[in-house]
């Protein structure tokens, strides 16, 4: 059974396209999580399943243990560019043992996802590769 282990913390929106959602999932203890997000267009029943592996090294080649990580952050954007202005929402994942996450209730449209890892000293990684999800449901 897939656990729903997220805690919705806040929602701000200027317009629907610039809606920002910050979610903390610090209570997750398994390897996966979910979060509903009703973004653009309709209907709102599309699911994006994200998977990843934690980095094992720092940029300078020194080993990086999971215990040295504080969180992952998933970014969803309305364009493939890794740019703050293009972001729709972001999700913090405090359980660094997680390797998959479901973003639910996406409305029709194109979404681009990418990730960062943050260590316990607050150092943020470079961005992962960018992956597209197209929701086009009748």
């Amino acid at each position, binding site marked *: 059974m897939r656990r729903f282990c997220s805690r919705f913390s806040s929602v701000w929106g200027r317009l629907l396209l610039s809606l920002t959602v910050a979610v903390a999932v610090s209570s997750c203890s398994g390897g996966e999580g979910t979060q509903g997000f009703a973004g653009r267009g309709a209907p709102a029943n599309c699911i*994006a*399943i*994200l*998977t*990843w*592996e*934690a*980095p*094992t*090294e*720092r*940029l*300078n*080649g*020194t080993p*990086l243990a999971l215990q*040295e*990580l504080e969180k*992952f952050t998933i970014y969803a954007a309305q364009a493939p560019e890794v740019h703050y202005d293009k972001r729709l929402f972001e999700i913090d994942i405090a359980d660094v043992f997680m390797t998959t996450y479901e973003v639910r209730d996406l409305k029709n449209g194109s979404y681009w*996802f*990418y*990730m*960062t*890892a*943050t*260590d316990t*000293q607050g*150092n*943020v*990684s*470079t*961005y*992962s*590769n960018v*992956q*597209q*999800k197209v929701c086009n449901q009748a």
Partner: protein
Amino acid sequence: MQKLIGLAMSALGLTALVASFAITIAEAAPVGQFSATAPTSYENGAGIDPTDILTYKVYCGTQPGVYDFVYDAPDLTTAGASVDVQTCVQGTPGTYYFVATATSTLYATESVFSNEATRFYTANDLGNVPNAPVLFTVQ
């Protein structure tokens, strides 16, 4: 013979120290890129002897005026001169302080310290940030 001249000058109380000079530092650790204005005279006012080859050292520390590491440096007046200061910064973000000296091979005398150049090294400068998550996919 030349060293004898230097010793004789010292015995006479004449200094042949290379006059102080200015340095700047750019680029990130572990390789700091330095530049310097070439010294043109000794402290006694005499111009640098054309046969006198100057060698350089860079000193590094974590507090102003306190330098725990010294590195033999290339000619700092040459563009792109760089020194690996990794043993000084040791992957630790923060502000570091650098000075340089020039040593006269003719008189075996080392100049006083140059001005102090500072640089703040971020974790990113030092490559201390985590790599990005890998094998990221979306279905």
